[in-house]
C-alpha cells in the first residue's frame, strides 16, 4: 500500500462516510416503516429530531462523495511517478485490477449523491417533510454502491505496489488497443464531436426553455443526463486530441496535469455540475403538486436549470475554445 496524505484522506473520509451511510440507512428503514406525521408518539417525535440531524450529516457526507471523485483522480495522477510505465492517472488506475472499477463506481456514486442532495434540499423546502420517504428510499438504494466503493477503493489503495509495471495512457487509450478506453479512442472524432454538439445544444436549449417557460422539465433532465456520457466520450475521442495537439493521444487524464493547465478539473467539474443539476430538474418534477412544495419547487427547479445552463455552457465553451484555439486540424 502506498500511503500519502491524499490516500489517507480518501480512505479515512470514505470509511467515515460509509459508517454514516450505514447509520443513516438504519434511520431510513425506521422512517419507511414507522413515519406518521399525524402521530404525536414519542417514537415519531424522536424520528423527526433524528432525521434533521441525519439529513445534515448526510449532506456533508454526500458532498464529500462528490468532491472525492476529483480527489481520487488527483491522487491517482499524483501517484503515477511511483509506477513503471505510468505517465498519468491512466497508468496508476491500471496498476491494480480495482482502479477502473473504483473510478466508474465513484463517478456513478457522485451523480447519485448529487441527485440525492437535490432531493434532500427540496425536502427541506417543505414544512411537513414532504419527500422524507422518497429520499430515505433513495438513500437505501444509494448505500450499497457507496459501501461497495468504500471496499473497492480500500482494496485498490491496499493493493498498490510501487514495483508494478503498468501501462501508459498511450496504450490504454490507443486506437489499436483493447478495452473501453481503446474503443472510445477508436471512435471517429468528427462524429463524436458532432454528437456532443447536438446533445449539448439540445440540453442547453431544453434547460433554457424550462428556465423561461417552466415547460419541458423531463426533456431537460433527460438531455442533461445524456450530456454526461456524451461529454466523456467526446473528450476521449475528439476534444483531447485538440488539447494535446496530437492526432493519436486520447488520454482523458493527462488533461488534469499542469502541462495542460489542469484543464480537466474545470472541464469535468462543469460537465458533472451541469448534468446533475439538469437531471435534478426532472427528478423534482413529479413532486411539483405536493402542497407544501408548490410554492418553492418551481423556483428551485429554475435555479437548477440555471445551474445546468452554467455548467453545460462552461463545458461547451471550454471544449469549443480548446478545439478552435488548437494548432491541430483533423
Amino acid at each position: 500500500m502506498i500511503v500519502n496524505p491524499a490516500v489517507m484522506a480518501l480512505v479515512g473520509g470514505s470509511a467515515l462516510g460509509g459508517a454514516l451511510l450505514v447509520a443513516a440507512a438504519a434511520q431510513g428503514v425506521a422512517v419507511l416503516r414507522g413515519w406518521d406525521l399525524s402521530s404525536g408518539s414519542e417514537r415519531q417525535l424522536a424520528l423527526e429530531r433524528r432525521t434533521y440531524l441525519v439529513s445534515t450529516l448526510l449532506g456533508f457526507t454526500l458532498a464529500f462523495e462528490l468532491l472525492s471523485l476529483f480527489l481520487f483522480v488527483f491522487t491517482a495522477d499524483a501517484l503515477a511517478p511511483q509506477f513503471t510505465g505510468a505517465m498519468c492517472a491512466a497508468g496508476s488506475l491500471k496498476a491494480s485490477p480495482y482502479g477502473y472499477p473504483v473510478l466508474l463506481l465513484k463517478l456513478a456514486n457522485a451523480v447519485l449523491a448529487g441527485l440525492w442532495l437535490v432531493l434532500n434540499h427540496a425536502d427541506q423546502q417543505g414544512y411537513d417533510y414532504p419527500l422524507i420517504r422518497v429520499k430515505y428510499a433513495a438513500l437505501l438504494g444509494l448505500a450499497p454502491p457507496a459501501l461497495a466503493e468504500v471496499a473497492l477503493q480500500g482494496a485498490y489503495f491496499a493493493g498498490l505496489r510501487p514495483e508494478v509495471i503498468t501501462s501508459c495512457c498511450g496504450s490504454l487509450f490507443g486506437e489499436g488497443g483493447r478495452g473501453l478506453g481503446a474503443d472510445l479512442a477508436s471512435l471517429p472524432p468528427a462524429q463524436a464531436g458532432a454528437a456532443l454538439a447536438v446533445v449539448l445544444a439540445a440540453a442547453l436549449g431544453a434547460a433554457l426553455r424550462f428556465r423561461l417557460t417552466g415547460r419541458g422539465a423531463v426533456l431537460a433532465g433527460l438531455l442533461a443526463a445524456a450530456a454526461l456520457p456524451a461529454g466523456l466520450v467526446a473528450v476521449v475521442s475528439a476534444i483531447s486530441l485538440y488539447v494535446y495537439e496530437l492526432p493519436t493521444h486520447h488520454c482523458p487524464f493527462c488533461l488534469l496535469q499542469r502541462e495542460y493547465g489542469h484543464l480537466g478539473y474545470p472541464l469535468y467539474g462543469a460537465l458533472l455540475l451541469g448534468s446533475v443539476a439538469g437531471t435534478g430538474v426532472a427528478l423534482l418534477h413529479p413532486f411539483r403538486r405536493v402542497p407544501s412544495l408548490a410554492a418553492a419547487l418551481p423556483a428551485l427547479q429554475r435555479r437548477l436549470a440555471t445551474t445546468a445552463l452554467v455548467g453545460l455552457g462552461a463545458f461547451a465553451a471550454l471544449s469549443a475554445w480548446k478545439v478552435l484555439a488548437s494548432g491541430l486540424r483533423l
Partner: protein
Amino acid sequence: MTLIEVERVRRVFHQGRPDELTAVDGVSLSIVAGEVTVLRGPSGSGKSSLLALLGGMARPTSGRIHLEGRELTSLPERFLTEVRRRTFGFVFQQFHLVRGLTVLENVMLPATPLGVPRAELARRATALLERLAIGHRARARADWLSGGEAQRVAIARALINDPRVIIADEPTAHLDSRLSMELLEIVAGLKADGRTVIVASHDPLVYLAGVVDRTVSLRDGRVEADSR
C-alpha cells in the same frame, strides 16, 4: 377562539438515564386568543417547561401543539424559527438583555434578522420605549438599568416584532410590589391591544390580578386545576 391547542404533551429530560425527569406529563389544554392565562404552581411543577413548549422554544418528547390549527412541534427548525419570531414575544425571568448594547439596540435586536431598515426599526423601538415610559433611557447601556427598567426594556423587546402572543416566565420574580403592579398594568394594555398573554408565575399578585382570565395550576408536570 382557540389559538394554541396542546395535546397530551410530555417533556422528559435525561430520558433513559438514572436522573430522568418528567417536567411536563401528558398536559392537554387550549389557550384562547386575547386572554391572559397564568400557569401557576410551585417550583419544579413544569411551568417554565410548558411555557417553553408553548412558545416553540423546546420540542416535546411526545404529544403535539397546534397554533391556529397548524401543527407546530413537527416543524423543521427553520420553519419553527420563523413562526416563533413572528408569533411570540418572550419576556424572560432574568430579562436576558445583552450587556454592552444600549437599550434601543436591545429592543431592535429580535427584528434584525427580518431585514427591516434600521431607521424604521429604530422608530418602532423608540415608540415602544415611549409607550412603556422608558424612552428617556434609550441611549443608556443595558447593564446600567434598574430591575424595573430592565423589565420594561425586556417587554419592549418582546413587542418589537408585533407578536400576537406574549410569553412571560416569572416576570415579577425580581420586582417589588409597586413594580409588579406596574407590570400588570402593562399586561392589561397588551390585552387591550388584543394580544394573548401567557405567564408562568407563582406570585399571588399575578395570578390573583383582575386582568387574568384564566389560571392553570400545575403540579409535578400535570394540570391540577383549570379555573377562570
